[in-house]
């Protein structure tokens, strides 16, 4: 199957907006060209293969694993929080999202600590890096998120129930 060179022709007026796009495009292409030249001139071939492998793996892991997982998690949440009001669902999702973002950063930190900090005298390890108790910090953060989210969800539930009760005469 042969691809056409261009899409359907679009007539564009060459105003300032067109020139801005053209300038940005030209600058971007020049910077990309400089980057390709820089890689070829400064990075040995064996390392270039490593870079290409990491670039490909990043796409596969992100597009093939991480995003589908968020979709699954979102669907699961919809089922779990069925019956809650939109505001309450938003609170639950917001708390989980904040926790997920922090975990995304803390997980490699915890892993690095396991890999890089051999203990014992004479190990020569640098004890001014990776010295925090990150597992505990992450645990406390999740606890705060869960308690806060539960509190807000309950408060919203109580408030909306109270405001929806109608007074009736006996």
């Amino acid at each position: 199957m042969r691809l056409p060179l261009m899409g359907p022709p679009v007539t564009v007026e060459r105003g300032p907006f067109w020139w801005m796009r053209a300038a940005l495009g030209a600058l971007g292409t020049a910077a990309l060209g400089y980057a390709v030249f820089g890689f070829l001139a400064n990075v040995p071939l064996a390392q270039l293969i490593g870079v290409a492998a990491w670039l490909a793996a990043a796409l596969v892991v992100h597009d093939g694993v991480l995003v589908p997982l968020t979709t699954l998690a979102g669907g699961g949440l919809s089922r779990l929080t069925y019956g809650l009001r939109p505001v309450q669902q938003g609170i639950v999702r917001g708390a989980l999202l904040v926790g997920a973002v922090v975990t995304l950063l803390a997980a490699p930190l915890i892993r690095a600590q396991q890999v890089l900090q051999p203990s014992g005298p004479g190990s020569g390890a640098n004890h001014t890096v990776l010295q925090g108790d990150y597992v505990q910090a992450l645990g406390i953060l999740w606890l705060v998120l869960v308690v806060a989210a539960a509190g807000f969800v309950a408060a919203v539930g109580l408030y909306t129930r109270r405001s929806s009760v109608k007074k009736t005469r006996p």
Partner: protein
Amino acid sequence: MDRLTTLLQQRMDAVNGRFSSRLRSKRLTVVLGRWLGMAFTVCFLTGLFSHLLQDPPGWMLFPTRPVWVYAATQGIHVTTGIASIPLLAAKLWSAFPELLRWPPLKSVVHALERASIALFVSASLVEVTIGLLNTFQWYPWPFSFKDVHYWLGWVIIGSLALHIAVKLPLIRAHWSRRSEASAIAGEAAEAAPERETVPAAMAPATRPGWSRRGFLAAMTAGTGVVVLTTAGQSFAWLAGLNLFAPRRMDAGPQGVPINRTAAQAGVEGAALAPDWVLTVASGSVHKTLTLSQLTALPQHSYGLPIACVEGWSQGAQWRGVRIRDLMALVGAPADAGLQISSLEQGGVYGRSFMPAAYSQDEKTLLALELNGAPLDLDHGYPARIIAPGRPGVLQTKWVHRVEVI
């Protein structure tokens, strides 16, 4: 062939349907893209500054005031890099259905555009990942961090400019809620001129799940939390909130963190040797100074930050001999550059070049004391360089030779 195409299209539409979310919209992508574009641009510029300080071209200007200039730019570099991780994840999530569009390639130009997007996305993901792991001093990849991080930075900034150029009409149409509403109304009017439609942007959120504003608020909160709980390694006023940074202020011997220990550098024996001398050389003039002779020279004391390329910094009080006084001892010309040699052999830390902008600065010292006590072995005993506004990797430790070039 046609039936196969139709079947494929239906399948892809079904997959796309699985990934559809009320939250995803061009407006959301534009809002997130604005933040991410700013973060990437700041990251690129501060990173470029750091790179130029380490590998200076002939025209480079070396700012020495304010003395915390490098601590600030590199702290900002690492902090905006960390902030861009959740922003990047959200931005890519918001535009994910674009990946599943069918047919995948409509023309050669379209194919090039998609290839450039793939490169942009993968380069961004790798760049923030290796940047973060570098701050842990963890290198689980088969390439040089410094080179690859630098050149990927150029890939990203080039791709960003190209991406904005391609998407500018969409960005303009969805820049604000008002412009989006009119853009959607315009599209709707073109599609169905006889029916009155309420633009989706104006429709109230009635379905379960959450609104765009809720999602953006949560993203802002998440980004804020990771910034506030890590930036304390670079900025003293946030040190109290530092939960998730690899570095702590005031940690280490004499209250200053270490980039590389004496054991890692393999200099313990040579640095503690009683016959250590400093050699200062200019042409054929050589002068050797013992530690007690150095201590007998005029001493100067300054508060200067030490700031690492990994983003952490630490203010400290340094005391020692001015470099320009040492140069005067051997009659070196004032505009001369210096080569500083460490007892550490080879590597990036073994030698550093000091342009005249630093060597002539009154605050550039061959430091012998730190925070009121002789330098700890891990901080470069018996003598180290400390200059205002320079990357930590150039503040050579365990100095044994200063040579005019």
